[in-house]
């Protein structure tokens, strides 16, 4: 099966590596999907086929699981993913204004990807870093105590 990810690894190799790491059992389904999603940026349908084959789990069930959890995506995401906490502690600490600044700066709304494919903007529930709210996470980097004026500088680092 064709289909290469950004580092040139094939989808089936990535799935194989995850299955080898966690073992081909049903209770490892979510850790495996997590790992593949992390490696490939999302879960392409070829990957779901391969996991289905390896774990002997119907594809319908895989799709049902993949569409349930927020960290799994069946659609490609932008090169960089912004997760913005919209829970009450960050909201009260000024998150609303920061959220507006992010949307204005990128000119997209929640769950959208910029037309150049650089950015995907997601909202997320609490990330457990509330003592430094408002919090936003760009890829794996956490930014706390963000104020609206800092938003352009933070995002410019990823250009």
């Amino acid at each position, binding site marked *: 099966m064709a289909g290469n990810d950004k580092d040139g690894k094939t989808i089936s190799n990535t799935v194989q590596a995850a299955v080898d790491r966690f073992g081909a059992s*049903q*209770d*490892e*389904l*979510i*850790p495996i*999907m*997590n790992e593949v999603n992390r490696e490939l940026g999302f879960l392409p349908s070829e990957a779901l086929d391969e996991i289905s084959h390896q774990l002997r*789990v119907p594809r319908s*069930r895989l799709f*049902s*699981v993949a569409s*349930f*959890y*927020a*960290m*799994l995506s069946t659609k490609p995401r932008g090169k960089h993913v912004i997760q913005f906490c*919209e*829970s*009450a*502690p960050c*909201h*009260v*600490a000024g998150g609303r204004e920061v959220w507006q600044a992010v949307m204005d700066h990128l000119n997209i709304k929640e769950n959208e990807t910029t037309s150049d494919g650089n950015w995907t903007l997601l909202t*997320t*529930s*609490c*990330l*457990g*870093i*509330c*003592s*430094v*709210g408002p919090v936003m996470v760009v890829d794996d980097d956490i930014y706390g105590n963000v104020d609206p004026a800092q938003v352009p500088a933070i995002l410019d680092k990823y250009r």
Partner: protein
Amino acid sequence: MKAYRSMVLVSSDPESLNKGADEVYQALQTEIKAFGLENEISLTMVGDVGRHDAVPLVIVYPEAVIYGPVTKENVHYLVEEHLYKGRIASSLQAPVKELSGKIAWLSARKGTLPAEQRIVLERAGIIDPESIDDYIIHDGYQALAKAVTEMSPEDIFSTLEKAGLRGRGGAGFPTGTKWRFVYKANGPKKYVICNADESEPGTFKDRLILEGDPHAIIESMAISAYAVGADEGYIYIRGEYNIALQRISKAISMAKEMGFLGENIFGTGFNFDLHVHSGAGAYICGEETALIESIEGKRGEPRARPPYPTTNGLWGKPTLVNNVETLANVPPILRNGAEWYRGFGPAKSPGTKVYTILGNVNNTGLIEAPMGITLREVIAIYGKGMKNGKTFKLAQTGGSSGSIIPAALQDTPMDFDSFAKAGVALGSGALLICDDDTCVVDLAKVLLNFFRKESCGKCSPCRIGSQRAYETLVRISEGKGEMKDLDDLLELSNNLYQLSNCGLGQTAGAPIRDILTHFRAEVEAHIRLKVCPTGVCAIDSNQEN
């Protein structure tokens, strides 16, 4: 508000006011100024403190000295002795007799600053979490050794019951009793699970335990497995907690190497195998049956209960599910005994609670304190006062499924029973402190937005109810609400509570009920006057009525 050296409270129940509490308050104000102490001492009127025989009462923190009955003539002496010279004005102290209710609790902590008391966080931040040697030096794995070599399962259950340990996940169920249920369940194969899917907004206590003291959870899980007769366990950690996941995985392999996990632990023939399982971003997986579904590799949709996991859990087998904080209490209790544990907090909810303090206070962060401290203490002492000198308006406890607590209830001791009596919930221990710039409609909107997104969608009362409630709140916040919406909201809230399958839906309506109980006028202003009193909601005032 800023940080004060002392806090002075004057009772203001009708009886106190009748006997001149107002004059006492004014005299205190004058005298505190006369001694030049106004920047060091905060002075507040509080509601009914519960000791009517000696009103009006004046209570001075941090010493928790109760004076009463105080007259305006006494005030000069009281301020001079206690607040200026720092000596207790014993001639004015309330007679010590049949202290009851809230005041007994105050008196029990006399002479102590309600300081932090660390039990579950005893090692976090002190030891190297990646070193098992460090853990062992600090009493680590002693409780496990004691449990498997000296104690029968029954000893363990009764110790936990005597200690009065109650689940810290929010429900407050007695831990020893739950363990006994699983022990008594039939079948040779049983599981123990640690619920580390901490996703309540504003809560990160479990993360600090997992990151700072991972072996404590492993030790406690081994004890629970020994007690209930399980040989396999899972720690379910939310997918977002990368560091916790790595630390726990590493700690498990070290514990296996040292023989604290695996086969024939301490040479007793007890075997226990522990796995780590990560979540993938779903709040609902903190519900124990949804968590079990998720471990089985399915969507995290809660099961119908009964049967409960204690008899039909993971793969249909009897399963014990405990929260991280609950588990972290177990080894100290077994090491030090039930009596020691009962020495902290009130009699019916002993022990400590880990709180996360957030929002509009000067000092946000995490504390572990005895059960039964009050919001006023939390704000003044641990939060170092409200930010920018604003006024405290409300606190939202326990993440999204807690309560919205108005300032009027800030003297209620924070323990399971006192809170239940006041009709509010302690929840997970998150305390989101909000000042008077907070709009309750906006806050409820944010909370309902959370529920509608995190609802798993399995049962319609929750799936549809949370969505409809959110839409109605949005309408109200835009100045497009009608008075009938409030009745609809209450009905939705009630339906959510009565008809939802699991705790998420049952608590989703709580913010609505709370704001309409405590802040109805503010909500109505959005509808009747098309005005948001705090100016948070963007209402277009030119729209047609």
